[in-house]
C-alpha cells in the first residue's frame, strides 16, 4: 500500500482572470521508503505538485491521500497539525529561523509537538551529528554556509519523526561538493530511518542518485522510471 496516493490532480491558478493550468491530471503512487526525484523543465508543475502533496495548497480537482488521511477532509488548522506530525519540509533556501541556533532550529518543530526537553536535546544533537554539524550546534544560520544551512534544514525536517520528507529543489543554491554531501546525507537517512523522500530537482547529479525519477512536462507526468541503485 502506498504512503502517498495522488489521483487525477488538476491545479489551475488565476481561475477568474488568465487561467494557468499548472497541473492537468496527475496520478502518482509512492510507497514507504522510496527515494523519488520529480524532474522536468521550468514551469512544468513540480513545485505545484509538491505543495499540494504537502498540504500547503489545495488542488482545483482531484484527491490526495497521505497514509490513511484524505487531505480534502481536513480544515486549515487540522492541516497545519497534520503537517507538523507527518511531513518534513525542506525548501530551496531560507528554511531556518534566523534568530535561532542550529540546535534551536532543529528543536523548534519538536517544541511545537510538546516533546520533553531531554528528548528534544538528544534528538537535535543526534540529527545534527548525522548531517555532520556536531560542531555547529550553537551557530546561527547567518554564520553557516548555504550547504550547512541546508543540512540543518534536513535535520529539522527529520526532527518531528515525519512519515515522509518533501524537498523542493533542496540543492538549487549549492555548489557540487555541498550537493553531493547533502544527497549522501538524505540517502543515508532514507535507508537508515526508512523515511520516504520526495524531492524536485533540475540537477543531473541529483537525478543520478534517485532510485525513482518522475518526469513532468506541462503539468502532466511524462515518464516514471525506477532504477536499481
Amino acid at each position, binding site marked *: 500500500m502506498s504512503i502517498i496516493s495522488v489521483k487525477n490532480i488538476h491545479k489551475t491558478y488565476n481561475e477568474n482572470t488568465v487561467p494557468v493550468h499548472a497541473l492537468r491530471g496527475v496520478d502518482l503512487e509512492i510507497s514507504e521508503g522510496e527515494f523519488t526525484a520529480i524532474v522536468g523543465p521550468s514551469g512544468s508543475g513540480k513545485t505545484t505538485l509538491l505543495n499540494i502533496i504537502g498540504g500547503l495548497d489545495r488542488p482545483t480537482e482531484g484527491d490526495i491521500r497521505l497514509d490513511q488521511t484524505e487531505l480534502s477532509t481536513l480544515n486549515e488548522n487540522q492541516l497545519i497539525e497534520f503537517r*507538523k506530525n507527518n511531513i518534513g519540509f525542506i525548501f530551496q533556501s531560507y528554511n531556518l529561523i534566523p534568530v535561532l541556533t542550529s540546535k534551536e532550529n532543529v528543536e523548534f518543530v519538536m517544541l*511545537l509537538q510538546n516533546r520533553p526537553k531531554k528528548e528534544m536535546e538528544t534528538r537535535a544533537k543526534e540529527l545534527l551529528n548525522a548531517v555532520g554539524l556536531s560542531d555547529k550546534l550553537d551557530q546561527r544560520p547567518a554564520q553557516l554556509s548555504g550547504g550547512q544551512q541546508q543540512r540543518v534544514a534536513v535535520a529539522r525536517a527529520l526532527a518531528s519523526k515525519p512519515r515522509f520528507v518533501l524537498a523542493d529543489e533542496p540543492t538549487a543554491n549549492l555548489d557540487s561538493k555541498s550537493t553531493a554531501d547533502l544527497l549522501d546525507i538524505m540517502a543515508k537517512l532514507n535507508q537508515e530511518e526508512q523515511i520516504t523522500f520526495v524531492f524536485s530537482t533540475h540537477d543531473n547529479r541529483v537525478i543520478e542518485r534517485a532510485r525513482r525519477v518522475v518526469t513532468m512536462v506541462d503539468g502532466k507526468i511524462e515518464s516514471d522510471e525506477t532504477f536499481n541503485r
Partner: protein
Amino acid sequence: MKQIFKLAWRNIWRNKRRTLITAASVFFAVLFASSMKSLQAGAWNEMIKNVTSLHIGYAQIHAAGFWENRSIDKSLSEEDILQQLNEVEPEGLVGYLPRLESFALASSGDKSGAVLVVGADLEKEEQHSELSSRLVEGRLLEKGEPGVILAEGLAKKLNLGLQDSLILSSIGYHAASAVGLYPIKGIISFNNPELDKQFCYLDIQVAQEFYAAEGMLTGMVIHLEDNSQLDGVLTSIRGQLPPEDYEVMDWMELMPDLVEAKNLDEAGSFLILGILYIIITFGIFGTLLMMTRERMYEFGVLTAIGMKKWLLSFAVWIEIIFMGFVGAFAGIFGTMPIVAYFVQNPIDMSKYSEDAASTYEKFGFHPVFPMNFDINIFTSQAFIVFIICTVLAVYPILVIQSLKPVQAMRK
C-alpha cells in the same frame, strides 16, 4: 512558552537600529508625558493644598443657601450648630473652625479698598493652618482682642504698618450699619497673591460685634486629619444636619472654578499627549509594516512546518509588546530620577522668567511648581504603550491569519 518569549526577544534585536529608533520614540513620549503629568499633578496638588489649607478647608458647613450669594443675612447660630454637631463624632475629624466672613470697605487716610473680613477663632485657625508661621510682622490676636491682622498685599496697597489703624465699614446683619476702627497687630502673607490682596482677620467675637451678629456664624470649616477621610466625615455630618437648614460642601463644591480650571488644564494636556501618542502610534505602525513585509517568507515557513497561526500571532504580539516596553521602561526609569529631583527642588518660575511669574501671580498662583511623584502616572504610561502595541498588533495578526504559506513563500 519560555521559548516563544526567547524567540520574541531575539527577534526584536534582529534589526537593532529600527528597534532602537522605535523604542526611542516611545522613550521620549513616555519621558515627556510622565514629566508633564507629574508637573501638572504637582502644580494642582500644591494649588489645592494651598487653597484648602489656607482658608477654605476641605469642607464647610453653612446655613442652607449661604454659599450662593454669601450674604451675612444667611448666617447660622453658633449654639444651634454646635449642639447638632455634638451628636456625631466622625473618625478623622479634628474640629470645627467657626467663621464669620463678609466683605467690607477698608480705609486709612485717603486710601481705601475692598477687603474680606474673616472673623475667626485664631487659636483654632492656628492648629488648622499654622497661621503664625505666615506672620511677616507682629503677632496673632488674643481671644476677644479688638485688633486686625492684615494680609501683606493689602497692607502695601493701603500703605499701612504695625502701628497704624484701619477703619472698616460695611453693612451688618439685617442691614445694621457696621463701622469700626482696629489697630493693626500683625501682617500676614499667604504666598498666594489672590488671598494676600484682600484678607484681614478679626477675632470671631469682635467680628460678630462689628457685624451686629452676636452668636452668629456664616459657616464652619471642617478640620480633618487629611483629605482621605473627607468622604466618611461628610457622610456622617450630612446625616446629622437637616438639609433644609444646612448645606455641607466639600472643596470641590466650594470652588467649582478651581475644579473646572483643573479639568480644563487636564483636558488640554490630554489633547497634547493624545497627539503625541498618535505620532508614536504611527511610528510603531511603520515599523510593524516593514517588519511584517520582511517576515512574510519566514511566517510562511513557520506555518508550513506546523506552527499554528494563533501561536505565531501570539509570538508576534509578544514581540511588539517587548519592543514597546523596552522604550516605555527606559522612559519610566529615565523620568523617575528627574521627577524625584523636582519633588525635592520645586521649579521656581520667577528664577527663569519674570514675565511668566507675574502672569501666574495674576491668576492667583504662586509660581513655584513641585512635581508630584505618583506611581500611577508611570504605570498609566506603561499601560498606554501596552494598549497601543496591542491595538497595532492587530495588523500583523490579521496578516498572519489570512496567510497562505505558498503565497507567502513566493518571491
